[in-house]
């Protein structure tokens, strides 16, 4: 029998995250699905996007004939600057991050554990040249960490786990997880389910999750 529910697309996941970001927040978006979140914040809503390569007030991608190679985001894609935006150097940019001035950082991940640990930079201890970028600084410094990722790997292995098996990015920092199946808060009791795609039952979700889920 076919599943009676439809997992969310990457764009839908990004839109779901965007909906939950209050106006006025300073937000850093990681590479991958998190970057898409910016496209789903309406232009008239003032959410200030920070990019760790020295930009506050990142705007949408430019028209193809207006690309400035000197204006890219952390994912190295061309962007624009909103009125009120500013530029600064890398140490100042990470002072903003590490000093706790960013309200929210949305990151991708390989695994999140029920205690808020997460792993997003190396898929094994044998990965000798993993690319950490600014993930550890953001994870340790932002006021809130939300993770957005597929609920399971392509092979169906759960990503919401009891204990991360991949090398950690930071310990105990994840506050919320958005997957293509559900939205979950990380609490002292572990993962609490806040929302699920239509047609999905808590039991269906638990079947795809290693960590024990708590009904919201």
């Amino acid at each position: 029998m076919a599943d009676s529910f439809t997992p969310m697309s990457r764009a839908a996941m990004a839109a779901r995250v965007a909906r939950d970001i209050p106006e006025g927040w300073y937000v850093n978006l990681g590479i991958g699905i998190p970057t898409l979140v910016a496209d789903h914040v309406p232009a008239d809503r003032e959410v200030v996007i920070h990019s760790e390569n020295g930009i506050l007030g990142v705007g949408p991608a430019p028209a193809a004939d207006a690309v400035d190679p000197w204006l890219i985001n952390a994912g190295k894609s061309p962007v624009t600057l909103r009125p009120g935006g500013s530029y600064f150097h890398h140490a100042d940019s990470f002072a903003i991050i590490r000093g706790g001035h960013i309200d929210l950082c949305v990151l991708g991940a390989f695994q999140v554990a029920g205690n808020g640990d997460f792993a997003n930079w190396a898929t094994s201890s044998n990965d000798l040249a993993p690319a950490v970028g600014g993930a550890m600084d953001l994870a340790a410094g932002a006021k809130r960490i939300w993770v957005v990722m597929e609920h399971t790997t392509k092979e169906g292995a759960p990503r919401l786990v009891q204990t991360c098996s991949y090398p950690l990015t930071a310990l105990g920092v994840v506050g919320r997880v958005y997957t293509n199946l559900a939205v979950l808060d990380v609490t002292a009791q572990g993962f609490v389910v806040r929302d699920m795609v239509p047609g999905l039952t808590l039991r269906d979700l638990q079947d795809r999750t290693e960590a024990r889920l708590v009904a919201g």
Partner: protein
Amino acid sequence: MTRVIDKIVRSMAEAMAGIPDGATILLGGFGAAGQPTALLDGLIEQGATDLTIVANNAGTGRKGFARLLELGRVRRVICSFPRSAGSVVFEEVYRTGRLELEIVPQGTLAERMRAAGAGIPAFYTRTAVGTKLAEGKEVRNIDGVDYVMERALPGDVALVEAWQADRWGNLTYRRSGRNFNPVMAMAAKLTIVQAQHIVDLGALDPEGIVTPGVFVNRVVHVPYGDPPLG
């Protein structure tokens, strides 16, 4: 004989003079933005080898940093994001086992160089606590929270891309091309700059100079055309 301060050099050879084998080179740029491409070509030509390169990335394509790697001129890379789209040469060379690699979180990398430039030999940070990248480092509990001690990261040479420069070495940058450049300019014994525009002394707004000339040793004019006004 005029003895005024004039840091503008007339040739790339003059800009690169004296970089020794074994030098630690701080290489500005984040992706292609703010990367001192002409200086990298100058360094390839100049011939110094056994280099340690500090940069955010480990080069893409086959030119610049990647070319240095391919030529076997790099002993050690210190960076935050070695493997990315197009880092083919890095991956080839790394696989041979002939390249040392130190992965540093991006913010820690920037702060370690800022510390070197500011006379701070070591500082504490939350970043990397409890992770593989804190292994072997001192962890210290301050007011109930664990922090990792990180050491200053000074360079022998910084290669910097600026937008405007004057003969005192005052610099401005363009947009996100600023990135690591001002921090690296502070942190090296010899700071070499390629600038798109050379302007008269006094032409830069003193409120808007990002790197004061005190941090700069040599400036070479590398005009490569203005980008579209985005």
